[in-house]
């Protein structure tokens, strides 16, 4: 049986690597992971950028340089141009006898407050020797935005695995090859497992690769793999049934895409809804997967907690399987 499962898996993987659409599904999570690295800052990359006029007040520029990234420009217009660029930069320009802070308006409040504070400290001639500071850690070892994006990417990967299954089943349906498999010693369970293995392997590989690409190599990869495994089961089931029900690629892709709705709802629910209302998302395995991933990415969870979340996901998937299994078996006959 294992030989046949492996044979089916290798066949699907070979064909998937040749086809543009399926190859895209395999590659796109890795591209997105690289994109997340570019778009979201690391925890250490929180310096404030300040734009000043060159030689207007060299002493001030030197003072600011100890606490922020200072960029110097020849005149006020050039400072303004720099402030208007996409990233967060505050300009500090002379006016009357003092200075004013020029912003584009979309900078984070912290950047503005930091620029104001630095200016005040300079004007009050506060030196480093006068300061007494204490580092307070809030338990965050990764930027929240990056953690959220990577968590969403992990759920997206499980969805793409489901789509991949739908494409592979659809190929069997269009070529009418299931009946040819049915007259070999391959059992239906071996066929289903072989097909599922492709989606599961791609999901696990992509998830681990994305975690490594985005710099989460210190998290427990075994725990992450377990959550990906459990959350992918549901996608695979949906992929199977949609592949069997669809007549062409667009229909299959469109049907599986409907799953994005509960997934997006679950993420929004977890991130934005207060604790008392989160009970309304307990039915969604994506909610539990997102919660478990959040725990793993922030390295804040325990094994019993994780096992509980995975247990809930598997129980929901089990219920969905009980509902869909007879239809899948009937369609495969």
């Amino acid at each position, binding site marked *: 049986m294992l030989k046949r499962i492996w044979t089916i898996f290798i066949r699907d993987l070979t064909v998937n690597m040749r086809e543009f659409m399926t190859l895209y599904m395999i590659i796109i999570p890795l591209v997105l992971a690289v994109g997340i690295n570019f778009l979201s800052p690391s925890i250490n990359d929180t310096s404030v950028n300040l734009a000043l006029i060159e030689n207007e007040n060299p002493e001030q520029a030197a003072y600011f340089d100890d606490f922020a990234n200072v960029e110097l420009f020849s005149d006020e217009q050039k400072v303004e141009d720099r402030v208007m660029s996409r990233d967060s930069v505050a300009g500090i320009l002379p006016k009357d006898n003092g200075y004013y802070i020029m912003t584009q308006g979309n900078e984070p409040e912290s950047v503005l407050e930091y620029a104001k504070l630095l200016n005040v400290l300079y004007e009050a001639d506060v030196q480093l020797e006068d300061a007494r500071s204490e580092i307070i850690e809030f338990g965050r070892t990764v930027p929240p935005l990056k953690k959220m994006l990577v968590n969403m990417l992990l759920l997206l990967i499980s969805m793409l695995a489901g789509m991949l299954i739908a494409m592979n089943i659809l190929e069997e349906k269009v070529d*009418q090859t299931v009946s040819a498999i049915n007259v070999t010693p391959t059992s239906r369970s071996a066929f289903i497992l072989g097909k599922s293995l492709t989606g599961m392997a791609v999901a696990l590989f992509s998830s681990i690769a994305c975690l490594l690409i985005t710099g989460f190599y210190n998290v427990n990869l075994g725990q992450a793999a377990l959550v990906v495994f459990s959350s992918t089961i549901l996608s695979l089931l949906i992929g199977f049934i949609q592949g069997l029900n669809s007549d062409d690629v667009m229909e299959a892709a469109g049907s599986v895409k409907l799953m994005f709705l509960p997934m997006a709802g679950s993420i929004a629910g977890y991130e934005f809804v207060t604790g008392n209302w989160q009970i309304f998302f307990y039915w969604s395995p994506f909610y539990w997967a997102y919660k478990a991933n959040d725990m793993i990415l922030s390295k804040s969870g325990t094994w019993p907690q994780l096992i509980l979340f995975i247990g809930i996901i598997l129980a929901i998937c089990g219920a969905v399987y009980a509902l869909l299994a007879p239809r899948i078996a009937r369609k495969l006959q």
Partner: protein
Amino acid sequence: MIKVEGLYYSYSNDDNFAVKDVSFEVAEGEIFGFLGPSGAGKSTTQGILTGLLQLQKGNASVAGYDIKNISRKMFNKIGMSFEQSNVYSKMTAKENLSFYSKLFDVETRDPIELINLVGLGGKENIKTGEFSKGMKHRLTFARSMINNPSMWFLDEPTTGLDPAIAADIKDIIKEHNNKGVTVFLTTHNMFIADELCDRVAFIVDGVIKLIDSPKILKLQYGKKLVEVEYVQDGNVKKETFSTIMQKDKDLLNQIIADKEILTMHTKEATLEEIFIKVTGRGLV
């Protein structure tokens, strides 16, 4: 090799049977033709015997395996060539056969040898999506031999093939049968059945009307006459002679000896004519 008793099958799970009280046996090494028009129940019967359809009522065994509790091991012994080509269009001919060969537990044949056998040599590395309908059909036929089956189910094996290729396929079937392979041939092509089958069954509306060998059927239903077209005094004449009456036999001998014969045909009935006579139905 095949034993079927009182087989019934309904697609709607009611009394609207596609196959009704079908019983027959196929001996080892025999080529058994299952003939009938479209929708007669040929494919349904074959579907049940190959496990593609669930046995609902009756008994059936294939290659010693009970179809009621079908064992996957049975498929190591049987080969199945489908009427509708069903190969992976995104894989090459060779990849298709290599993939299927890995699904069996028995020794399998070399894909290239089979590809050459069905006249697709040189096309082994082309994706089957680029194949013509006939080429796909030949590959489907080749695939059914991959596990050296002792029981071979062939569903319309020559449909859509040009006469030369169809003749090659017939030769391959004969050759395998000579090696002891039992063949269950489903077709509505009476010429193929006549040429290949040891026995044929006529099935119409899910009911078997008759089972016998083509030779006996022809003797039973044909006319013992010869039609001769010959030249006499510069004119073409056409006459029919009995092959039983001595007077006609003598006359025929004389014409053959003295005249220029243009055409001569026995008035033996074709299987198609017998089918229509027995069932009252055509084959289309």
